[in-house]
């Protein structure tokens, strides 16, 4: 009885990855013993205790609320634009419109997401000026690259039968995609989009640097000033926002799947 052979190339790659992991740990001067000391625990609890109680002065809460709305607007809009662009890029990138277009779009997607949000922010800052608009665009551009790639991979991994059968019957590529593959992967697309939205809510550094305000800038400000209680309020606001998106994601997926 012949065993199917495990490909040598696969073994080599896996060995290579293992080697990378080992080399990474070996080359970094990591100090684990510091983590296990009693001092570490004391120091950590002290740090965490510093956040209590969160600032609840009405004026500060108002300010936080405004920042929360700003963050919500920037992240939602940025993610929404990116989801649309990402889906449009994912179609060619998943090879549905031919091999050459696949290669070209993949390169485009790679480049867009290789450039960190910070760099996009700086570039768009010059084009769009200081403010939330530049932040929104920076998020949108970078996230398009990310979602485009995740969507494209998800498309490639979907069971092909329903779409293939529509194609065989003469439907156009796009129509077959819309009628057969989209309903299969929509929960996954939705989950990626909402998850990127969470990410964008936390994209503090970017939005702060472009003076776009929002929770990110507030957090950096208060942490830098060691105003831990104010920072705690901001973190809680972020946490609520992320939890709300997580709950939305959960509810939408449940609604879709059941």
């Amino acid at each position: 009885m012949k065993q199917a052979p495990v490909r040598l190339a696969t073994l080599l790659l896996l060995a290579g990855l293992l080697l990378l992991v080992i080399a990474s740990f070996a080359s970094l001067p990591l100090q684990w013993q510091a983590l296990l000391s009693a001092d570490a625990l004391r120091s950590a609890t002290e740090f965490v205790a510093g956040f209590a109680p969160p600032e609840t002065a009405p004026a500060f809460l108002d300010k936080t609320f405004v920042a929360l709305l700003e963050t919500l607007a920037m992240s939602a809009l940025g993610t929404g634009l990116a989801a649309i662009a990402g889906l449009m890029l994912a179609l060619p990138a998943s090879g549905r419109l031919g091999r050459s277009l696949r290669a070209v779009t993949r390169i485009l997607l790679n480049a867009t997401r290789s450039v960190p949000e910070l760099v996009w922010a700086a570039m768009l800052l010059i084009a769009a000026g200081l403010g939330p608009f530049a932040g929104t665009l920076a998020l949108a551009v970078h996230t398009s690259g990310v979602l485009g790639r995740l969507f494209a991979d998800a498309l490639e991994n979907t069971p092909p039968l329903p779409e293939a059968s529509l194609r065989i019957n003469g439907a156009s590529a796009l129509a077959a995609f819309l009628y057969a593959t989209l309903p299969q992967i929509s929960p996954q697309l939705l989950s990626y989009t909402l998850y990127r939205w969470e990410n964008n809510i936390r994209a503090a550094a970017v939005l702060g640097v472009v003076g776009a305000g929002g929770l990110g800038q507030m957090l950096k400000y208060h942490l830098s000033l060691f105003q831990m209680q104010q920072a705690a309020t901001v973190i809680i606001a972020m946490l609520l926002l992320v939890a709300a998106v997580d709950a939305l994601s959960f509810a939408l997926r449940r609604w879709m799947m059941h």
Partner: protein
Amino acid sequence: MPRAASSLPHSDPAWPGRIGAGVLLLVLLWPLLVWSEFRPWLLLDAQSLAATGRFVADFFPPAHSTDFLLLVAQAAWQTVAMATAGMTLALVGAIPLTLIATERLSISRLAGRMRWPARLLRQLVRWWLILLRSVPELVWALLFVRIAGLGPTAGVLAIALTYCGMLGKVYAEILESTDAHATQSLLRNGSGRLAALLYGALPEAASELVSYTVYRWECAIRGSVVMGFVGAGGLGQRMDESMKMLAGSEVSTMLIVFILLVAAADGVSKFLRARLA
């Protein structure tokens, strides 16, 4: 037996809901546009176009002095090493959490609702994952500076915790998006949860999981700005400096390194996905 022209079917029961959702979406969109000062025509303004042009022109040619390239090479390795170490730790934490959080693998959900202790545990894990990923990396970094001091340890731990939260959530959702049939059939025949996952969902989800994991690794490389905060160096820190100084040619060199790293990651992902079948 061709039927006589049937009376028109009662209308689409989902249509009012769809109209409602559409209207709601439009109503919500408006304040978003206002708050984010959404004015795309600003981009086409001649002056901003010129300014952008100047900035981009600055990117060429990329900086390529030997010193700088050496510096970048060293920073790139540091970054890759920290990203890899952080991801490895994140995976170690995320995999067990995923298994708990995945509802699809619940035995009690096979028929009807989950039992309450299972629901509670699952809910606790979900909250824990939310906490892990919604506490900003900067806060983790400050915490670990206190514990482990300046240097890569703090950075690696900050990555590990945040990414653990993200991986756990996304893995669970990927597993839940797979076709339920194979897994459920195994569970119904009495296999254990983990075994059912391995034999039922993994073949379908494996490519997606690999694709996402590699993508996260890329993110760890790009997100190494936080490493700079804690004095761990790396490309993120260099990029941050060059960006602040508007040193376009340096930025473009580093962007090229990023693009190469990302392309390499993409290649690994593609290869693994093709072979994992």
